[in-house]
């Protein structure tokens, strides 16, 4: 089984970290993984996205063009990536910022009010973790414990005090897609 993700949003929404944690979780789970940022001038203007592959097979190309799962954190990303998801794949939408209709009925669509939940948790910056929880759960690409492990191990030391909030964010996200 090969999970191919695109995770996209504004710069600052933490989509890069989200992708890296997914990769770590896959790695801890014994999978082949890769993470790849979009790079270059198109980064400019404040949007950012990354590709993540989690697979039983060695990863061929880390560049995902037809994701099995797209995670869109803002409106421009919906326009850009919703059409690329493979039929039968899934699409996770940050419904706090994205209200438009994805226009796909051949994919599973999950709406996650990530910013609202983050705000409820008292830290607007954990919206990405809310989403990550939802992604892990919705796709089953990696067990939730591995995501938690990744978070615990890879969170920068200076943010360690936020670990609990982040873990809680993961769980709240996962809960959204149950």
């Amino acid at each position, binding site marked *: 089984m090969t999970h191919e993700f695109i995770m996209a949003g504004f710069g600052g929404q933490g989509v890069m970290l989200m992708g890296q944690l997914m990769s770590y979780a896959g790695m801890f789970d014994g999978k082949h993984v890769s*993470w790849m940022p979009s*790079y270059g001038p198109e980064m400019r203007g404040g949007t950012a996205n990354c590709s993540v592959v989690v697979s039983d097979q060695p990863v061929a190309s880390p560049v995902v063009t037809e994701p099995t799962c797209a995670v869109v954190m803002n409106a421009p990303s919906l326009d850009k990536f919703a059409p690329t998801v493979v039929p039968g794949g899934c699409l996770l939408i940050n419904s706090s910022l994205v209200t438009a209709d994805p226009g796909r009925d051949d994919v599973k669509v999950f709406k996650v009010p990530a910013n609202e939940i983050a705000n409820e948790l008292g830290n607007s910056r954990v919206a990405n973790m809310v989403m990550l929880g939802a992604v892990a759960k919705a796709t089953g690409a990696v067990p939730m414990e591995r995501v938690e492990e990744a978070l615990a191990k890879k969170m920068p030391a200076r943010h360690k005090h936020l670990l609990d909030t982040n873990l809680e964010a993961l769980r709240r996200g996962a809960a959204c897609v149950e």
Partner: protein
Amino acid sequence: MGETILMKGNEAVAEAAIRGGCRFFFGYPITPQSEVPEYMSRRLHEVGGVFLQAESEVAAINMVYGASGAGARVMTSSSSPGISLKMEGISYIAAAELPCVIVNMVRGGPGLGTIQPAQSDYFQATKGGGHGDYHLIVFAPQSVQEMVDMTIEAFDVADKYRNPVMILADGLIGQMMEPVVFPDGEDRPNTEKPWATVGMGDRAERNIVTSMDLNAEAMEEINWRIQEKYDKITKEMLRYETLDTEDADLILVAYGSSARIALNAMSKARENGYKVGLVRPQTVWPFPYEVIKDLANQAKAFLTVEMSMGQLIEDVKLAAGETPVYHFGRCGGVIHSPAEVYEKIEEILNGGGAAK
């Protein structure tokens, strides 16, 4: 063995250089390799080395010349247009027989092109983009891990043969994160370099680093001597991997990023009953001509998968004899999809397509 971590290719190659004993880096920013100088600017400071952002690629390669001539383990890194600017300097370094490591994270060309991955600098790397008869030893890693291993080794190899070594990768390997393990232990030590210009002290003979002899006969002598070294390197440094070639009707030839895609397509082909194998040169100079020559007796055809309009294919054809060689290229920054490579395999094995 150390811990497995996820690391970006560009940072991994930089860290690997440090482990390989590299203490000097001269470079200039260019996408998609800028994380190499960036990482070096932090890490070399920590280990007591020197990072210097040069005013240009031309200056950078000449700083490498100076530092290498002064006995250091030294590296530079760039991407296609920047590497083109280094051509004169690389020819000088090869001619003066100075060891160093040069990273090329190839991007789509020609011209300013794109910043996406490509493999269209193959000829430049393997045949000599600079003037004169010279060769670089060229490693072609296919993963972040392999890049690490090869880079660490590259410094020893460069010193051993007093020859520049190139790490030929691309934006894909440079930008991606993959699990990687660094070997435990100390950084590799620098080598004894009695020929280096470190000041005469009480040495009787001066050390002189030069790439010139105004006398043609003497310059030919130098060429012969270097050529002998190349023969030695050809024997000693060749690296390649073969996969499922034993019974293969069609043998893919691919290196670096493309080999990942080729492997994926090949797996699918095997699943579907096609007898497909893979030769993956890990050094593209020296090149595994003999391996391909041997396989040419058995295989019905070769297919080169490369992000270029057709460069690797020439080396394969040089070895393939009468066996047809097909080429499937993407370029300008476009990466093959495994699916299209698979289709190409099917097409060839079902008798379609024309060998190039």
